[in-house]
């Protein structure tokens, strides 16, 4: 029998959002326990491994050996393969890294552990403990043995297929149109340019895109995301990806050495991410950027706020959902406007025809935009193809 335990903050899930939350809660003075259901943090990798870098300083992540390739820019390919290049001049410091995601997750867990967090492997939450309608911890299965861990604050950082939110009665249900189903091969011997992350739009990946993220020495992550509601004839993401690879000789000659899949939410932000005694963070809180499908930056930024508020709640002795509004308001003030704006843009993009994509990318490839934003893009397209921008008047 494992004895029951008590802690100040219980973090469920040791991905980037979980580790970041745990670290900041510990740094601000809480006793923190972080659970990971697997035997290894960061593995298996379920990620395209591309990320921006401008936010790392804000949450206290230092560059490390998890950086694989530093890219100079991104290239957007239209269906007829016209190319628009986004470089550092456009995107400021937004252009980023291709990373070793397992190393990255481990580094964040190390940072958390060094800040005083106790990390438990092979420990899965199997139920939440409730008292008078408040979450007061979790029942945890650790190496096959079940015991209870009580904590005034519990954090659900259990990823896309989050159970914690559902168990706590927070609606995290996701519609088919709000999810992309993804598959990726790591391929060797491919002809990609290590200076760029490449994105291919249009019917090759309805409601999503094909990505090629270079990992150096002929190695690349070649993946696809397809909006579940747009999947046709019961084809799956693998069918779409294989079809795309077959049509591109520089990738068709490559050899697959790894394969990962998963779901990515492309929804508007959740209406509620806290309840009495509980906060959700990262993919579990549907914080993934609906336009890019990237979740690491938002999860980490929200994690810092979440960890800080967790300690404030413990110190104040008030884990009520009213108190936890500090987190709800904090992460929304920092992230929600961009999430919402990108969600609107995504809603528009998934409805565009291949012809429209071609026209837009053609125009963008031909003009020099000072600063890349939706308004400037639309203005440029409007001068050449006014009929294309008709639908976008709400943005202008």
């Amino acid at each position, binding site marked *: 029998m494992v004895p029951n335990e008590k802690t100040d903050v219980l973090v469920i899930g040791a991905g980037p959002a979980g580790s970041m939350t745990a670290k900041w809660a510990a740094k601000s003075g809480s006793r923190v326990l972080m659970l990971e259901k*697997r035997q290894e943090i960061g593995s298996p990798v*379920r990620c395209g491994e591309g990320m921006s870098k401008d936010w790392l300083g804000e949450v206290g992540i230092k560059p490390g050996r998890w950086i694989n390739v530093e890219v100079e820019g991104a290239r957007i390919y239209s269906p007829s393969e016209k190319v628009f290049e986004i470089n550092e001049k456009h995107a400021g410091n937004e252009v980023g890294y291709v990373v070793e995601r397992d190393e990255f997750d481990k580094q964040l867990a190390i940072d958390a552990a060094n800040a005083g967090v106790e990390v438990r492997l092979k420990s899965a939450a*199997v*139920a*939440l403990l409730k008292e008078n309608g408040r979450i007061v911890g979790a029942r945890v299965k650790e190496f096959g043995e079940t015991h209870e861990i009580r904590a005034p604050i519990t954090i659900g950082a259990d*990823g*896309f*297929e*989050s*159970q914690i939110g*559902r*168990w706590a009665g927070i609606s995290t*249900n*996701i519609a*088919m149109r709000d*999810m992309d*189903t*993804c*598959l990726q091969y790591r391929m060797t011997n491919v002809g990609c340019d290590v200076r760029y992350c490449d994105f291919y739009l249009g019917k090759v990946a309805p409601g999503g895109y094909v990505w090629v993220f270079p990992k150096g020495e002929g190695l690349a992550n070649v993946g696809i995301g397809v909006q*579940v*509601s747009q*999947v046709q004839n*019961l*084809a*799956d*993401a*693998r*069918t779409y990806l294989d079809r795309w690879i077959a049509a591109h000789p520089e990738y068709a000659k490559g050899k697959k050495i790894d*394969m*990962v*899949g*998963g*779901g990515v*939410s492309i929804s508007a932000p959740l209406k509620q991410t806290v309840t009495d005694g509980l906060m959700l963070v990262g993919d579990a809180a549907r914080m993934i950027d609906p336009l890019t499908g990237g979740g690491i930056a938002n999860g980490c930024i929200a994690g810092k706020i979440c960890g800080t508020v967790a300690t404030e709640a413990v110190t104040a002795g008030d884990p009520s959902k009213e108190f936890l509004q500090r987190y709800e308001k904090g992460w929304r003030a920092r992230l929600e406007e961009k999430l919402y704006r990108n969600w609107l843009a995504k809603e528009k993009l998934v409805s565009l025809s291949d012809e429209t994509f071609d026209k837009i990318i053609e125009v963008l490839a031909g003009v020099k935009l000072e600063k890349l934003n939706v308004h400037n893009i639309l203005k440029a397209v409007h001068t050449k193809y006014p009929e294309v921008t008709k639908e976008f008047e709400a943005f202008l």
Partner: protein
Amino acid sequence: MRRPRWTAEVRPVPNKKSLHIESSGQLCIYCGACVGICPLNCIYLDETRITFDEKVCTRCEVCVKACPVGAIEIG
């Protein structure tokens, strides 16, 4: 909390289509996409085993579309 009671390969319920999740690893890559999208929260992923609750499942087929490798069938 509800836990899985039926494995994916068991008997169909009368008047319901049968749902088959290939979870032996021949197709399934244990990515959890089906778990995340299930509107009734009745699919469970436990390392290398996927199970679903036959009684709760309404055969809405959302998981079939969400599976990136076509490992779920409804017949």
